[in-house]
Each structure stands twice: as structure tokens, then as C-alpha cells.
């Protein structure tokens, strides 16, 4: 029950703040829509006309996932920086529920809220391009949820780093391009990326949406890699976060900015 109250409190906070920073939220949505338009017109004017439909569909899914991964993962880094600047970081560290739980509920809340925005953007992009993807929610949602686990892991690593270093804005700006690379590069071109976080999941969702597949039509090996990948990154994320917390408490870095 305490978990539920913790989640409620953090979801509500994220939702309220998103509403109160509405111009910022709208600006971000518009930016991504513009990125999609740039990709769309780029494909239209310089792309191979034979693969036009395929390329547009590929770019729609990729832009959406780039936004989702970026907003979810970078969010927590910026969140820690903001908390440290405001002076609330120490206050949440005084919660007897544990900060990792607070962070987890915030990441999940943010993921949920960003997913709603992603769906709106997705329909906007499909409407603009006239290319309708197969959404297959019964197939895509479970894959996205498992993929999210690895995103949570990376988010914890970023949060840990932010607690110690604080000024990681430059890193986060570079990181958004790393995410872009991970989302856009197809696994067929770089199979080793299956071991990178969330790439396997994004690739599976993209295949499902473009080729109109169901859960059973995907190879079992893909699921195995996806599950293992998510689990490894989650554990790694929690370990790194815990280690960073210990360092911060040893050196007294929690309240410093």
C-alpha cells in the first residue's frame, strides 16, 4: 500500500509540474514534430523513391522512440540536478521509503506521461505523412514495457552520476545524440547493438509496427535477448546508483551543488 501512495504522490507531482510548465512541454512536442517533418521531407526529396513508404515508417517509429527514451532517461538526470539546486534532494533522501523507490516511481510516471504524448505525436506524424503503421497494442505494449526496464536501469545510472557530479548537463546533451544513434541505427546494420540498452526492444517494436506482426511471429531468441538485456541493465543501474549514493553520503555531496 505504501508503494501505491508513493507512486500516487510522485505521479501527481510529475503531472502537475508538466501542466504548470505547459509552454515547455508544448515546445518539446513541437520540436520533435519538426524533427519528424525534417526527416519526412528529407526522405521525400532526397530518399530512394522505391523505399519511400518503408523509410517514412522507419523514421516515424524511430523519432517517437528517440523522444520517449530521451525524455524518460535524461529526465531523471535533470530532475536530480534540479533537486540539488532547489535544496529538495536532501529532503527526499530523508524519506524512509528510500530514494531509489522515489526515483523509480518518478521514472515510471514520466514514462507513462511521455507515452501519452508519444501516442499523440505518433498519430500526428502518421496523419502528416499519410503512412499508417500497425499499432498492434497487444504486441507492442508488452515489448515496450520490458524495454522500459532497461531504460530504468540507464536512468538510475544517470541519476547516480548526477548525485555525485551534479553538473552533467553537457553529458546529457551529448547523450541525447547517443540515444539517437541507438534508436535510428537498424540492428541488421550493427547486430552488436542488441547488447546496448533498449535497442533490441525498439527494433522489435519497429518490426511489429512496420511489418504488422504479432507476438508469436517474432523469434524466441529476440525475446531472450530482450529479457536478458533489460534485466542486466536494471541490475547494473541499481548497483551503480547505490554505489554513487554511498560515495555521496561518505563525501557529503548530497546537499552540494
Amino acid at each position: 500500500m505504501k508503494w501505491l501512495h508513493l507512486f500516487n504522490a510522485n505521479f501527481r507531482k510529475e503531472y502537475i509540474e508538466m501542466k504548470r510548465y505547459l509552454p515547455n512541454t508544448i515546445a518539446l512536442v513541437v520540436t520533435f514534430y519538426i524533427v519528424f517533418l525534417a526527416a519526412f521531407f528529407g526522405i521525400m526529396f532526397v530518399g530512394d523513391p522505391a523505399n519511400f513508404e518503408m523509410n517514412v515508417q522507419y523514421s516515424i517509429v524511430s523519432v517517437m522512440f528517440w523522444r520517449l527514451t530521451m525524455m524518460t532517461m535524461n529526465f531523471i538526470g535533470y530532475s536530480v540536478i534540479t533537486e540539488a539546486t532547489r535544496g529538495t534532494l536532501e529532503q527526499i533522501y530523508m524519506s524512509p521509503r528510500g530514494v531509489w523507490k522515489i526515483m523509480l516511481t518518478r521514472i515510471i510516471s514520466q514514462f507513462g506521461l511521455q507515452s501519452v504524448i508519444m501516442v499523440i505525436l505518433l498519430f500526428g506524424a502518421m496523419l502528416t505523412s499519410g503512412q499508417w503503421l500497425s499499432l498492434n497494442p497487444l504486441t507492442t505494449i508488452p515489448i515496450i514495457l520490458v524495454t522500459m526496464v532497461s531504460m530504468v536501469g540507464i536512468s538510475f545510472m544517470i541519476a547516480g552520476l548526477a548525485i555525485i557530479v551534479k553538473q552533467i548537463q553537457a553529458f546529457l546533451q551529448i547523450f541525447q545524440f547517443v540515444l539517437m544513434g541507438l534508436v535510428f541505427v537498424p540492428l541488421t546494420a550493427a547486430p552488436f547493438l542488441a547488447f546496448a540498452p533498449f535497442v533490441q526492444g525498439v527494433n522489435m517494436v519497429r518490426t511489429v509496427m512496420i511489418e504488422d506482426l504479432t507476438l508469436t511471429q517474432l523469434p524466441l531468441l529476440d525475446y531472450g535477448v530482450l529479457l536478458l538485456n533489460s534485466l542486466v541493465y536494471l541490475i547494473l543501474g541499481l548497483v551503480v546508483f547505490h554505489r554513487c549514493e554511498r560515495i555521496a553520503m561518505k563525501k557529503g555531496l548530497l546537499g552540494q551543488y
Partner: protein
Amino acid sequence: MEKIIEVRGISKVYGKRKTKEKVHAVRDVSFDVNRGEVLGLLGPNGAGKTSTIKMLCGLLDADAGSIHINGLDISKKRLKALEHISAVLEGNRNLYWRLTVRENLEYFAGNRGCSRKQVAVQAEKLLEQFNLKEKENELVNGLSRGMQQKLAIAVALLANTDVILLDEPTLGLDVEVSYELRNILKTIVKEEKRTIIISSHDMPVVQELCDRAIIINKGEVVIDDRVENLLKLFETRAYSIKLGEKLSVKQENKLLTRFPLSTYKASSHETIVEVNLEQGQDIYELFDILKEEGTMVESIDRITIDFEQVFIQIVKGGMTSEMAPLIQC
């Protein structure tokens, strides 16, 4: 009396990044806090107060020693121990400025695992008590500093913990708000019987609210006594003596040699000697100096000193924990 906080020999050393020099922020500090006691944790800037407070809150690991909150070792059972302690560490900076007054109360309660429904009655009571009811739906960034400070304290109280730690609760507030806040805290101390630790440079707050004071200087506890004892200790031996005439140079030299902390003020309309006597019989020595040249004594008044002066005398006088028992004798 039941001890709710037990601090035993805690130390904290920081390493300077550039010079690798070690700075001992806290050295072998030990004290207990009884349930329902209001303790003032005092010290000049850089004395090791904040490090001690942060170790008590589980925000900073001690290099040595142990801290038990309600019998729970904070280094081993940190989260369990945090069930019993809440704090206002940076006053108005401890709040979410883009949330309203009520949303802040509910958010922090939620972070401790409580639902909005569970805290509704108490939140209502606190809003009334802190005169924040009218502002409950206003964003925190639109409130005055005093109101923000009051809200930060209300948030800590809503946690319903056995121990509340208030770091500089009146810092940066004007006289009126500071007075109001002091009165609210006084009511809370009286009604709720919670254990409160106040760290403050605002000595009237300490004098009015605290049962006991611990003064830390250079990382060490220099005094640990009841506030009334400390006041008594300094009050009884400080005198202001009005003289009928000026002292001679010889008398003045003798006075300052025998009583180095005394002050001698001679003007055209009055001559006053203020002296702090270590022992009661020292007054005879003072009279001997005055008698030498037949100096007339017009009046002798005991100087009533407040806690601020006590604090300054302890800190500036370089008193240590070894000297403290001697003074009490």
C-alpha cells in the same frame, strides 16, 4: 528518562580536493537526547554543527562512532531510523516552488508512504496553526519567505515523527515573522511533546524554546547543559559596579591584570567597571583594589545576561569540555 537519540564518539573528516589536506569537521562527539526534550545545537560557523546534523539525519556517513535513533543504528538501519526523524534543513529551499502549499504537504507525506486521505485532518490542522489556510492553493514561489519557512516546518511536522530537526528555523526572517514562528514553535513544544533539535544562531529562539543546549566549537562539544543552568552560571558572577570617581592608573592596571576580561569605562558623567568573577570570593579582591585609594562605590548591579552573551562567552572565551565542569563547581 528514555533516550531517543544516542550519539557516541562520532567523527567526520573531509579531504580538501586540491591540497588533499584533511579537515576534521567533527571530533569524537557524544551526547544523548531524551524523549520530549527540546535541544539547541549551537556553534559558530564552521564548528561542525551541520555535519553533526546531517549525520543525525542519515545524510552523511560518520567516519567513526555510532548514532542510534529510537534504538536503531542509523548506519545499519537507515530507512527504519528515518521513520522516527524528520527535518527542515534548508528552510524555504526544502519545498517545491511550482507546487501549491497543500500540494507540498501532500507530496512529502506521500513520499513517506502516506495517502492524502490519511494526512488530510492533520494537514488541515497545520494549515490553520501556521496561518497558511488562506494560501493553501497558492504556489510556493509566490509566498513570502516567512510563509515558505512556516510551510517547511509544517511539512516536517506532518511526517509525525518522534524527532524533528530544525536547522535555522528563523534565518532571514523579519522580526515580526520570527516572533510569530517562535510562538508557533512554543505552542508545538508545549502541546505535542515531541523531541525537537534546533540548530540556530538566533539565541532568543534557543533561550525561549530549548531545555538544553549543546555548543560545538572546532568539531568538539564544549558545553552540554540545561539552558537555565548556563544562564545561571554566567549571570551570578557578572557585575556592573558604578564608581563615584575615576580609577588611578595603578588601580586600572591592577584591575585589568587580576580580571583580564573586565571592562573599565570612565567618562565625564560616570565610571563603570564590568567584571566577570570566576569565584564568589573574588569580589573581595576587587574591593581591595578599590579600597587602596578610597574609591567610592555608588552601586553594584548583577548583570542579567541573555543566552546570546552566554554563547559568545563560551565560544570566544575558548572554553572546552574539560573546563566546563570546573565552571559548574
